C-alpha cells in the first residue's frame, strides 16, 4: 500500500487506535474514541488538502 490515501488512512488508524486505548478504559468507549479520532484526522487531512490546493492553484 504505497498510495498517498492508503498510507494516510493507515497512519490515521494507527494513531487513533493508540490514543483510543490510552485515553479510555472501557473497550467500547476506546473504540468509539478511536473512530472519532480517525474520522477527525481523515477529514482534517481532506479539508487541509483542499484548502492548500485552492490556495495555490
Amino acid at each position, binding site marked *: 500500500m504505497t498510495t498517498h490515501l492508503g498510507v494516510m488512512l493507515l497512519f490515521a488508524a494507527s494513531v487513533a487506535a493508540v490514543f483510543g*486505548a490510552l485515553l479510555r478504559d472501557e473497550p467500547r468507549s476506546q473504540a468509539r474514541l478511536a473512530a472519532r479520532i480517525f474520522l477527525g484526522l481523515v477529514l482534517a487531512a481532506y479539508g487541509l488538502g483542499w484548502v492548500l490546493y485552492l490556495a495555490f492553484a
Partner: protein
Amino acid sequence: MTPPPRSAARAPRSPRTADGSARPGAVATALAGWFVPGAGHALQGQAQKAAVFALVLILMFAIGLGLGGRLFAFQTADPLTFLVAAAEWGALGPRAIGALTGLGRGDVVAVTYEYGNAFLIASGLLNVLVILDAVDLASGRKPQ
C-alpha cells in the same frame, strides 16, 4: 477543620494487583515500556491496553521501515535530525532491532521515504506517551 498532615497527604502509594501482591515500581515499568511497547501496561495488569500498544506501535515501526524510512543517528550539528533521532529512540526495542539488523538505512529517492519517517517518528513519540501513562499507573497518580 484541620488539614491532614503533609506527610500523610504525600505518602507513597504502592499499586497492588487483585490478589494483593505489589506491582513493579515506576522505574521498572518505564524501562519495560521503553524496551517493548506496551510492556509497562502489562506489568501494571492492563493486558488489553498492552496488547493494543504492542501491536500497533511495533507495526507502525515496521511499516516505517518497510516504506523506506531512515533510522537517524544523533547529530548535534543538525537540530532537526537530532530531534528525529530522539523521537525514534522513544521505542528502544524496535529501534535497536532495526539498527542491529541493518534496516532503516533510508531510501531517499523512494516516493514513500517521508511517509516512512513519519511512521518511525510517530511510533517513538506515541511510545513515550504510553510510557508516561504506565508510569502514572505505577506511581499511583492514575487509578488502575
